[in-house]
Structures are given as C-alpha cells and as structure tokens.
C-alpha cells in the first residue's frame, strides 16, 4: 500500500492541528502562498487577517496571554518577517509563548538577495527564544513540534520557523506526531531544590516584615500557580505587591494587596519594599522599573528569588536564597510545607508591620480631585474600571501615562485579564492585542485602554476589527500629548517639549465611522458615566475619544536614580527633589 504523501504546507497545517491550534494571525505574501492554499482547503484552523504583520504578532500575544496557549503567527518573507521583529522582541521580553511561521525564498535562492529575501533567522536570532530554518522537508514535522515545546516550556518565548517556499511545496511521507518528538538538549528545571524550599519557609516564618513580590512568571506558570500563591499569602498574613506584568496573579481587591510597585507603583508598595526584612520574589526579575537605583533597593532584606530562568538570578540584584524552578510547583511545595509544619509568622510583629503599611496607605497616593467639567485622565480610567469591573473585562493597554494609570486604577482579581507591553514598552501593542483577546473570548468585554499617540501607531488594525466585527472597546485617553515623553521633558529637560505634541490628530469619531465602527467623543466630566455605559452596552466595536485634562502627570513616581524611599507624590514634590546627574542618563 502506498504511503500517504504530504506537501510541506500540509505538514505545517497538520502539525498546527496536532498542537491544538485553532487560530492563526497572519498576512499573506508570495513566499507563504502554499501555506495559505492549505489553509483555504481546511476548516479546523481559523485565519485572522490583520492589516500589518506587526499587528499579527501583537494579536497573537493578546491571544496567548488571555488564554495561556501558544499564539501563532504566519507572515511572508522579507518585509513580512522584518515587520514581525518588534512583536517578537516584545514577546521575548515579556515571556509570551509564540510560534511565528515566516515564508522564505526557495532554498536555492537563499543568499542571492532574491526578491523579498531577508536573513530572517539572522535578524531574529537575538529577539527570539529560538529559531529554525527548515531546509529539508524531512525535518519539518519534527521542527514544528520542537518549536512548540521550546515556546511553552521553561521560560516561555517566541520561536520563529523560517520556511523556504520549495520546502512548503515539496512532498514527503515523513510526519512525526507530537509525542514522537523529544528535544535533544532542552530540559528546563521545574522543581526547586527541596532544601532551599524548606529554607525559604523557615525564613518567611521568622520574618517580622515580610513582603511577597510577585511577577508575570506566576501568570505564565498557569492558573494553579495563582491559586496556591493566593492561599500561601493569605495563610502567612503578609502583604503582597506585584509588578506590572504580575497584576492579577494575586487578587487586586484583596486587603493584603498593597498595589503595584516600582516607578509608578503605590507609595505603600514601594515603602514596604524598602523596609521589608524578608522579600519573597516569585517569578519577577528585578527589572530596573521595579528596583530604582540598585544601591538603594530594599537594603535591609533577606531576598528569596524563585524563577524558572537561572539567568534571572543575581542578574541585577544579589539574592540570599535562589530557587530555580517553576513558580507554581515551588509555591505549591512551600504551601504544603507551611501547612504540614503548621507555620505562622509572629502575629505581634506582623501587626506592627501592617500598622506601618496602613500609615503609608493613608497618604492615598493615587488620590486626585475631579473638580470641574474637564475630565481628569485618572478619573476617566477609574470610572471605566468601576463601570466594567462586574463584567471582568480583558484589558490591554498601549504604552505611556494611560498605561500606568490603567495599572494603578484597574484591579484584577484573576490572572490573564491584563495585557500590556511591560519589558519592551511597545506603543501600538494594545489595539492588536485586544483583537487577539477578543478572538479568543468572543462573548467577553475586551477593552484597549489607549492614548491618542499610541493608537496611531497601529490604527490600521481597525480594519481587522471591522472585518471580524470584534466588539472591542477602544478607550482613547486623549490629552493631545505623548504624555509620558512630556512628563520626562518636564522633569529632566527644563520643560522644553521637543516634538511631544500630538499634532494633526484625526477626528476619531469620523475615523471610526469610516471603518463602520461606532465613534464616541466625551469632553465633559458630567457626561462621562453615561457615555461609558453606552459604550459598554454597545454590541459593536467602539472607538471612544475621551478628551482629558492635557497637563496631568503620572504620580506617584520614583524619579531616575532614586530609591523607593524617595518617591515623588505629586508636582509639588518635584521642585524640592532635583534629579541627580546619574539619574539623568537613565531611561
């Protein structure tokens, strides 16, 4: 009996199906036409046509982060691949599992500067977790499954598979199923050293001023990690803060949650970080947005660091007790030991610690006053949160002031609801990410909290939203400035607003309508709630132009080169605390 033969394109589709993929985000072109043809001939995998390849990668990120599955991208060679680079870098820095299939010129033309040829594996080597060029169809199915394994296991990340057109069109009898493929070398360590976990439990139990510092690693580890973490934090009675990426890993409305920490974190979270005696870092990486100047970072604490990536340990901050392993597994073991050994933290010490924290909380560092009819941006976002929280929305953001306000005023009680570009800080991330989240969650409320400048960076994706009638709510906090740039120019450059004004903005309502979406504009505080409700209730996509106070800045803030104990709480603090020379060179 003749064995079945597959084309390379068919092998790609079969491998995607076997990996459980139901959605691919992409854009066609000459070098991927065989795969597009194979997509045409089947119904299991849905293809979402974006308007630019960069949008495809961010959409796949939104899909991946809101589902916990791998996001899949399909783009053509040359410009298709180079347009994907920003999104790949974004996914690498935020540890998002992606597979990006790129077309390539046929193998005999590689290196000839052929039409739409780019050295894709060369270009993407430093911005992916791993990449492959498949030169031989016999290796195709193995490579596909290996790539999925690499993308998801260990610290997740983006993997590129470059597919020459002749490999897509070639024929082979070789198809390996996922379970037949075992990676030769990549075996990430998931279980922490038992001795170290015991030591960690001992340290926490003997702490007087403990603090849990939780990052995106807990979300990447899966919902179970959030559950065991929440139980452990509650049993200990200790305060918990999260990074920007960790929002939702611990319930944001819980009384033990002290808010996000870092550059625009809460006063209480940052002072708790500065003053704690035992810090339990779970799945966070001591990023510079978190630590401020290293020499002033949490100077008196014993530091426990749980991370699946050994290279995150002692990279920026030297720690006392490193545990390399999966956040969920390590915390589960800590929880088991905590219960089994009937551990507790001395209640008197804990009470003193909480009293201190309450003192810091009483500063009400996120307070603002909404007085007249000009909408304060903080107020706009806080009202958006209040009016949508019962719907448990998926929230994406762009990058800048609105992003920080969204992080401050939204609270997430569950993981995977919050999607933002944390590491790379990619303006234009939020709109396509919302497309991905909405595709994955048809009936849920998906909001892109946006700024007018960021929105313009990927607004072509309005076309995608229109085509698939995705009821995404795009909420533009429009202050007609690149607000965060202007804020830094005020702080560091004598208030000289070099090129940071959003000039020549379109009429966003007409823009929305031109795509067949609903456009709304709100200019007065007294109209805000009513119009927000109208947006939320609208079954169609809405572009909401919220005109806000132009000069508002984002506080609290740890200025460059300062420590957590040197926060600026508002504009009145700025004049008193000039930024150091060293701080000026930092970003």
């Amino acid at each position, binding site marked *: 009996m003749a064995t079945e033969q597959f084309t390379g394109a068919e092998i790609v589709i079969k491998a995607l199906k076997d990996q459980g993929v139901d959605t691919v985000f992409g854009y066609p072109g000459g070098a991927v036409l065989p795969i597009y043809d194979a997509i045409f001939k089947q119904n299991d995998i849905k293809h979402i046509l974006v308007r630019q390849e960069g949008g495809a990668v961010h959409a796949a990120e939104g899909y991946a982060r809101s589902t916990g599955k791998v996001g899949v991208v399909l783009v053509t060679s040359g410009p298709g691949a180079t347009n994907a680079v920003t999104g790949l870098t974004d996914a690498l820095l935020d540890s998002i599992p992606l597979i990006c299939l790129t077309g390539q010129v046929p193998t005999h033309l590689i290196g000839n500067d052929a039409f739409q040829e780019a050295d894709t*594996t*060369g270009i993407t*080597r*430093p911005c992916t*977790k*791993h*990449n492959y*060029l498949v030169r031989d169809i016999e290796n195709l199915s193995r490579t596909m499954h290996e790539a999925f394994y*690499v993308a998801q296991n*260990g*610290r997740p990340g983006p993997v590129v598979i470059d597919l020459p057109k002749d490999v897509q069109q070639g024929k082979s009898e070789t198809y390996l199923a996922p379970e037949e493929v075992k*990676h*030769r*070398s*990549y075996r990430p360590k998931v279980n922490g050293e038992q001795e170290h976990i015991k030591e960690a439990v001992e340290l926490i139990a003997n702490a007087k001023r403990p603090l849990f510092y939780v990052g995106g690693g807990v979300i990447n580890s899966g919902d179970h990690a959030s559950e065991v973490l929440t139980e452990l934090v509650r049993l200990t009675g200790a305060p918990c803060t999260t990074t920007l990426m960790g929002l939702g890993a611990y319930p944001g409305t819980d009384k033990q949650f002290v808010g996000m920490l870092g550059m625009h974190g809460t006063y209480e979270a940052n002072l708790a970080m500065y003053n704690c005696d035992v810090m339990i870092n779970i799945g966070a990486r001591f990023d510079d947005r978190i630590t401020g100047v290293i020499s002033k970072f*949490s*100077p008196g*604490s014993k*530091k426990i660091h749980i991370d699946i*990536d*050994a*290279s995150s*340990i*002692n*990279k920026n*901050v*030297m720690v*006392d007790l490193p545990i390399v392993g999966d956040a969920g597994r390590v915390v589960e073991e800590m929880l088991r030991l905590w219960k089994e050994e009937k551990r507790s933290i001395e209640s008197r010490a804990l009470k003193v610690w909480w009293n201190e924290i309450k003192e810091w909380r009483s500063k009400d560092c996120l307070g603002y006053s909404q007085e007249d009819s000009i909408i304060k941006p903080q107020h706009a976002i806080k009202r958006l949160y209040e009016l949508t929280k019962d719907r448990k929305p998926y929230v994406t953001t762009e990058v800048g002031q609105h992003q920080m306000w969204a992080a401050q005023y939204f609270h997430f009680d569950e993981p995977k609801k919050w999607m933002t570009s944390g590491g790379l800080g990619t303006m234009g991330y939020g709109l396509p990410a919302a497309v991905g989240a909405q595709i994955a969650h048809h009936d849920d409320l998906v909001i892109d909290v946006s700024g007018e400048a960021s929105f313009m960076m990927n607004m072509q994706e309005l076309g995608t939203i229109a085509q698939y009638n995705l009821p995404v709510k795009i909420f533009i906090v429009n202050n007609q400035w690149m607000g965060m740039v202007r804020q830094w120019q005020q702080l560091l450059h004598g208030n000289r607003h070099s090129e940071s004004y959003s000039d020549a903005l379109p009429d966003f309502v007409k823009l929305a309508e031109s795509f067949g979406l609903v456009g709304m504009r709100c200019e007065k505080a007294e109209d805000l709630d009513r119009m927000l409700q109208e947006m939320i209730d609208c079954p169609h996509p809405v572009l909401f132009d919220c005109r806000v106070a132009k000069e508002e800045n984002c506080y609290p803030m740890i200025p460059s080169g300062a420590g957590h104990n040197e926060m600026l709480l508002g504009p009145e603090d700025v004049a008193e605390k000039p930024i150091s020379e060293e701080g000026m060179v930092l970003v």
Partner: protein
Amino acid sequence: MAPIETNTESRTIAVLVDNEPGVLARVIGLFSGRGYNIESLTVTEVDVAHGLSRITVVTSGTAQILEQIKAQLGRLVPVHRVRDLSIEGSSVERELALIKVAGAGDKRVEALRIADIFRARVVDSSHDHFVFEMTGKSDKLDVFVDLMQPLGLIDVSRTGVVAISRGPKAL
C-alpha cells in the same frame, strides 16, 4: 545583600552544543549583545555520531558577570552542558600557533636556535623563511612571538585556547 564585586578575573568555559547551523552565531551574539568579553573562542565538532560540537571560550568579568555568562549560555536551546574549567577542578589548556619568520644570516640562525629552546617545530622553510609550529599555554606562545619580533616575524596564526579537565571524568 552581598556587596557588589568589582575584581575581574579570566575563566575558561567549555560548552557542549548541538552541531547545527547558527549555533556559533548564537553564542557570539550572546556575548556581543550583552557586552561580555571574548578573549578567545574555538569551536569544532567533537562527536560526529551524536552531532555535538565543543566550544571553548576564554572570557573575563566580575564574579557576578561570570555567573551570568554561564547562566545565559545554559539557557540557549541547543546547549547541552556548560562547565567552568577554571574553577570546577583543575584542567589542561593548550593553544597551537603557526609563526612565519622571514630573514637571512644571523637572525635566521638565532630564530632557529630560540625555536629549538621552545620546542617549536619547523613545518615549512626556504632559504629566507621558516614556519614554526608550536603548542603550549598561551603565555608561552606570547613569549615566543615576542622573541621572534626582531628576528623577522611577518605572520602569526593562532587557534585560541582549547581545554579539558584533568582526571577520569568527561564533560
């Protein structure tokens, strides 16, 4: 928090990798992208049956940076093993050099005499040149090259360091 160290030291690190396209570029890109030093780097396939190559890299940095380098190497997907040969037991390090010296008369005689002292072999010669082959520790090669300088040294090719641990255990 442990104090931040500022003393730099040199280390020889052995890395066993899959012999696949781009693997060397990954390692070199890691060093350049993160600003680490490469003092010497050698690579070749060492296990044809299993398709494994061995990279020996000599690098320098503070203790914290050196730990980072090893951790970063360790997380590259095609990397099987990373060993710090400078601190994990003792090891043997060797380098090979080919050194071309051109000249005539007394200088030529002197070059040959020094080569003899250093146990360098003549692998090519004519009436007006020698090519010496020499194996040894890198600092010994440095000294030999320096001595050849005034005697008509015109070309040097060196392999970079290869190293292996002492004792009966494999990498």
